């Protein structure tokens, strides 16, 4: 089989490529880093191991006559044209939950960093300013706050589990509520989307992106949020209207933690870069060292299942032809 493996832009590319060569011995492996390299390799590829950093377009799929299986080394598949894959009978699978713990920890870290003015205080100290009065005027506890989780999939559940000991009240909204027994054991209360935004001190987004959800968090949602509340987006940039976010950050939000941007990396004139109450990270919430290993292991296991004609896990497109 001919493999194309798209590796993420990690400093560990060489190490990972070597590992792949060992695991898939006997097959031809093309390791690529960019879309252009991927497009070139796809012409003769049977199996593509894809990452969210390099899109797989309709044209890519149509120009890959041998392509049978796309394994995404990550949890999201919206960088893949699923419709085109389905038309061509290509199976598309992803890795579920491998980064859930990492994202959950990232959300908690971001929350605490915003509730305490962590970044600003660190910068002030490095600049020689002892800013205790400012700290005392701003630093808040997470305990006693109401935390809203929008999307109760694996990441949402991992986040809820970790938040409960912080003595917070947990609200959530999802298209499919959890069974009542699960809610009771996890201390979670299902509320409407409106109530989630009205009642929460912190809202974290954990819903998958679909075209209907484009800018689903806009001016209306921000206007419902409490003064001094926080928005955290580690899900998809397209969920949030950036203009509305900027207005809200200027007028009512305590802050926002943003891990996903519509343009990655952001242009230098992106207003978010200038805002003092925004905590930005480079789409890395789910790619800690441990998460990378889990993702790689799960992706490879799925590829091996495919090669052995065993059922593939986390299939998004079935490949019926």
């Amino acid at each position, binding site marked *: 089989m001919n493999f194309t493996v798209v590796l993420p832009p990690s400093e560990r590319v060489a190490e990972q490529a070597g590992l792949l060569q060992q695991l898939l011995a006997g097959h031809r492996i093309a390791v690529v880093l960019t879309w252009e390299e991927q497009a070139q390799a796809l012409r003769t590829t049977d199996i593509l191991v894809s990452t969210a950093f390099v899109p797989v377009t309709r044209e890519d799929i149509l120009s890959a006559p041998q392509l049978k299986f796309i394994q995404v080394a990550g949890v999201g598949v919206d960088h893949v044209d699923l419709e085109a894959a389905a038309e061509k009978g290509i199976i598309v699978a992803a890795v579920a939950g491998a980064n859930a713990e990492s994202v959950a920890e990232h959300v908690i870290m971001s929350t605490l960093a915003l509730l305490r003015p962590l970044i600003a205080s660190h910068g002030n100290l490095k600049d020689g300013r002892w800013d205790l009065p400012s700290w005392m005027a701003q630093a808040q506890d997470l305990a006693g706050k109401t935390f809203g989780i929008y999307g109760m999939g694996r990441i949402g559940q991992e986040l809820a589990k970790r938040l409960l000991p912080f003595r917070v009240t947990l609200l959530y909204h999802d298209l499919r509520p959890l069974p009542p027994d699960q809610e009771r054991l996890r*201390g979670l209360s299902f509320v409407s989307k409106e109530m989630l935004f009205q009642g929460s001190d912190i809202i974290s987004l954990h819903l998958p992106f679909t075209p209907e959800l484009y800018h689903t968090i806009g001016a209306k949602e921000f206007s419902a949020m409490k003064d001094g509340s926080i928005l955290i987006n580690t899900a998809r940039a397209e969920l949030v209207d950036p203009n509305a976010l900027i207005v809200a950050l200027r007028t009512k939000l305590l802050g926002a933690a943003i891990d996903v941007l519509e343009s990655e990396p952001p242009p230098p004139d992106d207003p978010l870069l200038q805002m003092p109450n925004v905590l930005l990270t480079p789409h890395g919430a789910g790619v800690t060292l441990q998460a990378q290993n889990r993702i790689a292991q799960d992706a490879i296991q799925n590829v091996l299942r495919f090669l052995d004609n065993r059922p593939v896990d986390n299939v998004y497109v079935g490949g019926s032809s």
Partner: protein
Amino acid sequence: MNVREAIKEWLQYHHISVVFGNPGSTEIPFLVDWPEEISYILGLQESQVVAMADGYAQASRMPAVVNLHSQPGLGHAMGALMSAKRNRTPLVVTIGQEDSRHHIVEPLLYGNLAPWASTVSQWSYQPTSAEDVVPALERAYHEARRPPGGPASVILPMNYLNGQAVWNPRREIDYHAMPDGMEDLAGILNAAKFPALVMGDEVDKEDAWAQAVGLAEALDCPVFGAPLSMRVGFPNRHPLYQGILNPVMSGIIQSLSPYDVVLVVGGPAFLTYPYIPGSREWGQTRVYHISSDPEYLARSMAAQGYCGSVRVAMETLLTKIVPKEPELPEVELWEAEQKSAAARERADMGSDYVLYTIGQNMPPDTIVVDESVSHSLLLRKILNFTRQGSYYTASNGALGWGLAAAAGIQLAQPGRRVMAVVGDGASLYGMQSLWAIAEHRLPIVIVILNNHGYTILKSLTQSLYPGHLPATPGLTVQHVNFVRLAESMGVRGSKAENPSDLEWQLKEAWSSREPYLLDVQVDAEIPKLL
């Protein structure tokens, strides 16, 4: 007609179908030839008899009759009578007495009872002749109802019950007077920028929740529960409800200081527990107080008091208040907060978890009798009280009241389920009541919140004398087998040591139509009191 017969006729005239008692020799003349239409509810000790009658009277909203045995029985009953007096519960208390013809030699059961009884009664009297007995009972009936309400005691020498009776004209008295000054008070409330209400026990006692909610919504103002209130005066899930004030004066002032006008409706203003140094000055806040109890008003912290029915007062105010458009906040967060707290404490059988689970399992119409002491504040926060007449507790901190009161309340309200939530320490003051509960097959769910001792005292010790708790004796009670105790008196029971025990046992208890006791091993962590 002799006095014995006349008393029974008098009971029936007042539609009194239940008499609570524990007899001795001096009560035999009272009990012989007892009519079938009147139930004599036997309690095994006089404190329990009085507490049963207290619960019955409160739940039936009419005076209850108690039959006590001379000076030993009155002695046993004194604590419970004090609770009834502090609860403002109308009781007609008959106390047996030796035959008057040998009082001069002070026989075995004789005592100079009227002075004793007077300390725990609104009125007490020993008739001077047989003819005097029924008129004395009739007066006691009205004295017991006279605001604020309480025990009225009649001492009955044995021989008088065999004498000839004299009837006296009976009368009906409406004590629910319209308080003066409502026009002025309405003006004050209309002019207030930030008014607040404190709802006390009389709101529930007078069936005035609808008026209380109407007044709060017309003013669109926050509502607090009166501290240590014996009843719940406002639905605790209403969006304007802010919770119960802490029973510490400085805390009460702090909570109410953001408001320019505070109106306390019913109950004392304010009942406190531990003394904490601090100012009793109100600053810019003006406090007003309506109560039918002149004594509450006399010792009130309010600038101005209005004496009369709280229900009538609120009805009058509602005709004079210019209603605001209430902006009611969402209330879903109450439930969410409790659900999260319960899940957090589940593994440890923490109080939040145990009370939340109890609340989730109790039918919505349940009457709760609370003698949970150290858990009481949390219980009133977590359990839903959305219907009036759903919560009872003793107003004076006396222990041993709860189980008996639950029995009396269940007798008075057979159409509603009753749950007694009682601390392990408290329950042991009144465990004999299980016998009466079993005997009358009262389907009460009894929850013992067992933290092995007097936790409220441990909390107080830690607050007042930090670090000295280990060297403070007398606060721990262990090695009591509550399930066997219950079974010995005819009540089925089980011990809940973990969450799954608790969850299935609560279901079992509520599905049973018999009394059921749960010994719940709640986390013994000592809560911070101050």
